[in-house]
């Protein structure tokens, strides 16, 4: 029960409903934000932890695609201290009401359909976040900058290498970082500032433009494509907020693998005091047996290692049997690699089984792609 009269300055809306089709088969049974990451986390942990550490204690999580596991994982939100009587985390799947029942048809539409949820808290600002990025960021600094500049909308941007810029939504600004133009995946980008999909709006302005967007039958109901350009065209004050630090969109097998490997270099992502909070069950520590060998790897609890593990990340409960080898791979919880199998440059999904003496994966040096092995979810 949300009690009236408890107002929040800023409410976060976390978009976690996308289908993540580029990550198939990993997303066959779970939503992308719930995919396991870095040995003991799930991708959404980063965003939820960022919220809590930034002093934002009211988070609506918009879910749609395969939400069962994600709902179960977030639950009442106690691992993130979001199990609050006033505020905390709220799961917001699509719903039916008296006149209509609609799926979320786009990012903007999902927030529009939950405008009443936001309204209960009468916020001044709304922070819109994506649930599928790996990064550590203090949103309170962005909010400070938003207020100081008297903006209607602030968009977090990150400087990407010029050669990669055409893969992103690019934002062109004037000398004072006021936004002058959006370009979606431009062939010839004019700047290298990529949108991180993190927006702060004044709630009054956002409400107005969500209403307008909802009435526009041509619109895809998408923030990037429709709402933000409409605001810019109408002359609202929109600023880019420059973020410096680690940030990665883990939308593809390659980028998911790379981001995991980045954790191996520095699992704190450069911010050791900014803890990533995560729901975890108590399981015993891992055991490395007489024949086990582990080098340059991250291991979570309850693994049983009798083979060789190098340059890899193993989640909870992974078994590597005698004479099996795992190199340069991401192994999710409770996967079993049987005797004599060899796994290289692979992502093994939860509870996947690699049979004895099987060979999985191909050398990356010779141009091989990351191999993904589906898990067992039934």
């Amino acid at each position: 029960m949300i009690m009236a009269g408890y107002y929040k300055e800023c409410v976060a809306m976390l978009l976690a409903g996308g289908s993540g089709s580029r990550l198939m088969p990993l997303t066959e049974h779970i939503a992308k934000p719930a995919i396991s990451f870095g040995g003991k986390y799930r991708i959404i942990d980063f965003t939820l932890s960022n919220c809590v550490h930034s002093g934002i204690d009211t988070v609506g999580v918009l879910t749609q695609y395969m939400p069962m596991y994600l709902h179960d994982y977030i639950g009442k939100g106690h691992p993130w201290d979001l199990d609050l009587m006033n505020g905390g985390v709220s799961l917001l799947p699509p719903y039916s009401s008296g006149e209509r029942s609609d799926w979320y048809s786009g990012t903007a539409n999902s927030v529009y359909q939950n405008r009443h949820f936001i309204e209960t808290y009468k916020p001044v600002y709304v922070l819109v976040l994506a649930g599928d990025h790996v990064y550590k960021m203090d949103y309170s600094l962005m909010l400070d900058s938003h207020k100081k500049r008297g903006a209607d909308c602030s968009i977090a941007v990150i400087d990407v290498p010029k050669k990669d810029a055409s893969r992103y939504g690019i934002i062109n600004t004037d000398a004072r970082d006021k936004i002058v133009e959006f370009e979606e995946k431009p062939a010839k980008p004019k700047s290298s500032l990529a949108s991180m999909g993190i927006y702060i709006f004044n709630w009054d302005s956002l409400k107005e433009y969500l209403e307008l967007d909802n009435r526009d039958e041509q619109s895809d109901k998408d923030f990037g494509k429709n709402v933000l350009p409409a605001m810019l065209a109408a002359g609202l004050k929109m600023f880019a907020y420059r973020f410096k630090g680690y940030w990665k969109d883990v939308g593809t097998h390659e980028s998911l693998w790379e981001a995991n490997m980045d954790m191996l270099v520095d699992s704190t992502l450069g911010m050791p005091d900014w803890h990533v909070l995560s729901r975890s069950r108590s399981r015993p520590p891992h055991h490395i047996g007489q024949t086990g060998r582990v080098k340059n790897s991250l291991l979570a609890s309850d693994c049983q290692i009798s083979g060789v593990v190098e340059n890899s990340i193993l989640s909870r409960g992974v078994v590597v049997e005698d004479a099996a080898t795992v190199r340069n791979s991401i192994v999710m919880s409770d996967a079993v690699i049987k005797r004599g199998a060899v796994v290289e440059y692979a992502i093994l999904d939860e509870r996947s089984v690699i049979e004895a003496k099987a060979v999985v994966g191909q050398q990356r040096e010779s141009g091989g792609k990351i191999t993904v092995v589906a898990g067992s979810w039934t």
Partner: protein
Amino acid sequence: MNVGLCLSDLQPQTFGDGSNHRTASATHFAGHFRLIDFMLSNMVNSGIYTVAIVLGSQYQTLLSHIGAGREWDLNRSVGGVQYFPQYPGGDRRFNDVRDEPIQRALLYLDEVKAENVLVVDGSSAYNIDFREPLLQHVATGADVTAIYVNKPVLEIDRDFTAYCKIERSGRVSEIQSDPPAGEPVNQCMGAYIVKKTVLIRLLSRERSCDMTKFSCQVLAGTLKSLKVIGWEFSGYFARICSLPTFFHYNMDMLDPQNREPLFDFNSRRIHTRVHDSTPTKYGQDADVQNSIVANGCLIEGKIENCVVFRNVKVHAGAVVRNSVLQRETVIGANAELNWIVTDKQVIVSESRTLLGYKTHPVYIERGKIV
């Protein structure tokens, strides 16, 4: 049976250095757990969601660890975990026995709807479904069911171990302390199912009661008048009450034959307070054999036959064998350790050599720098 009574500990954990940081049930075990985890998990796994805990001395660590009991689902609206600490001397209501923690716990139990009470202490590690002995308890109409394990007593186990004689009828005819070492005897596990009315009568005059007293004095004196029946447990059992037992039973966990039935991940899980440590990182030159390692560690050196708790660092070139490193221990580069137990936050500087022996592991106190 839906209620448990956890008696205060035998004594604070003393590892021979005179420093009692924590009560015995808060002692670390198996890299990740505290002993009380086993008893709380056993209770909830057996459907017991009301637990009265009588607190002895040095209980700060225990309270911080259990808190409201969320990790064990013991944060209940009805029942849940209830603490009974000692009142300070000047703040007594009756100025007599009724002010004692044990008496207040009995008063609480009196009001709980239950026929039987599970009486335990928190200094052992085992995994049990208490509903099995309860079935026998109800079927035999016993006043007390004593849970025991038949195994040889190690020399190090002799202190604090009570043992019992069981007649052919199943009745317990004798309970004694100081068992002979080496021979298999029926060791009392410090767990009894007792009719609530009997329990309240037995303890109504006691100012305090730990498990040794409960077994060897309170119960031992009533074996003729009460129907006390034994129930044999056949799983893994470890009681930890001293440095040698702490070392021995932690090292026991390196053997999967001991570890796997104790943690029984598929049916009866052992729960503990979880912390947001990162996974453990193994460096380029890490060399690890037959060891269990908890989360949050950084291992760059060599470890062999070790139990390593959370957030321990073993730097490059260090060699650690046959040792138990408790949380946040740091082993400096090129240091060498064999048969050592470090308490929390011990720092062993670069290139130090520390040697104990199998029968005499050397204990380094909490926070010391070697």
